[in-house]
């Protein structure tokens, strides 16, 4: 199963939005000008997204929108697109997911981060998809999208990290072409909340969702985590994705959404 050095992918890493962006390339364009240009475009696009959507920047469009200084109509069209995705997720999750999170004082503040990361990464990956005869796997802080052109080629092997022992993987997911997103509190503490209560969800340690779209997988992983002990039952209603839930007690549930009609 081990591959030779010649088959090992070429890797790139840079940081944006306070998280590492990791790229693995294999095929015709991995180290040449076309590959480096595509990688540069990916990072430029993610930095642009960060300038618009960062809640850590007081001067970002989203911060100004949250303070009511501008309206959605004043913003670049991507803002309306992201807010529409967030609204759909809020509806689908019964309010557990929301771009408007309750603060300690009960006042809600605008933070669409749960939508932005997967959406932005999927968009940025379009630059890589233009590389002919080249496979890619692009990860933004543990949420990733990948492509394999050869139907008989080896899939990308994605390790699902152990939520309490980050040096180990709990499972391996072979993905030829598709997306994987994981939500949990392993690396950032209890920053994810149930938007209905403002409290950290209970019962669940980590949710991984995979399917065609990273935008959808990331939103569903975040929303399912916010639902706490209701994660698996909710995920079972989501068409076209599968998921893997690690509960707080260490037990796991696999939700298989791959059945065809």
């Amino acid at each position: 199963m081990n591959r030779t050095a010649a088959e090992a992918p070429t890797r790139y890493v840079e940081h944006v939005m306070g998280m590492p962006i990791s790229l693995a390339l294999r095929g015709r364009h991995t180290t040449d000008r076309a590959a480096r240009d595509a990688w540069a475009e990916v990072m430029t696009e993610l930095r642009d997204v960060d300038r618009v959507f960062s809640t850590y920047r007081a001067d970002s469009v989203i911060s100004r929108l949250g303070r009511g200084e501008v309206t959605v109509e004043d913003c670049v069209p991507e803002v309306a697109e992201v807010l529409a995705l967030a609204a759909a997720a809020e509806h689908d999750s019964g309010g557990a997911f929301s771009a408007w999170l309750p603060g300690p004082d009960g006042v809600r503040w605008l933070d669409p981060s749960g939508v932005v990361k997967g959406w932005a990464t999927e968009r940025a990956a379009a630059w890589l998809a233009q590389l002919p005869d080249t496979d890619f796997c692009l990860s933004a802080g543990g949420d990733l999208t990948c492509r394999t052109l050869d139907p008989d080629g080896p899939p990308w092997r994605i390790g699902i990290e152990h939520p309490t022992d980050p040096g180990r993987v709990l499972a391996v997911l072979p993905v030829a072409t598709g997306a994987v997103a994981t939500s949990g509190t392993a690396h950032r503490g209890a920053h994810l909340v149930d938007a209905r209560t403002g409290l950290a969800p209970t019962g669940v340690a980590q949710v991984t969702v995979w399917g065609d779209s990273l935008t959808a997988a990331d939103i569903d992983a975040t929303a399912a985590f916010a639902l706490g002990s209701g994660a698996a039952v909710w995920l079972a209603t989501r068409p076209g994705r599968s998921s893997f839930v690690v509960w707080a007690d260490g037990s796991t549930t696999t939700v298989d959404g791959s059945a065809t009609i």
Partner: protein
Amino acid sequence: MKKIVLWCMSTLTVLVLLFGYHTSTSSQAAATAESSTVTPVAGSLAATPSTSASATAPAAATPSAAASATAAPESTTATTTTVTGSAADTRYGPVQVQLTVSGGTITDVSVIDYPSSNGKDQQINGRALPVLVQETLDAQSADIDMVSGATYTSDGYLQSLQSALDQAGL
């Protein structure tokens, strides 16, 4: 509101299935062990989008005999039982769920029927999704290309598994 009630009913179907499974096991010890693992699912009722859910949860727990009408074990080995629920209308459309219970723990939830009313869903469903290989491994022996985990920050990245992978390839 009616849709929410329907959604709760579908959740209840899952619950009822679980309690139906209890009635098929004669061992009191097994039933006790299972009831502890069922708790997360029962808890999900409170987490589903309705206040009425918590009110109906205790009701579902009592009439376990009635559950056999909707659920029957399809296949039983010494440790694993698979049960299929009847199709339930949810806010997303009809959903039919199959549960695998192994050693008193729900190990798999399969959706055997789900909403497919729009073309996008059908297009998505046309291709089989990857199947997870569940096995706890040291990263070194797992031979993985990329790691999916709770969001890494740049600060935490240096200690991360993904960092090790990236360095190995640089």
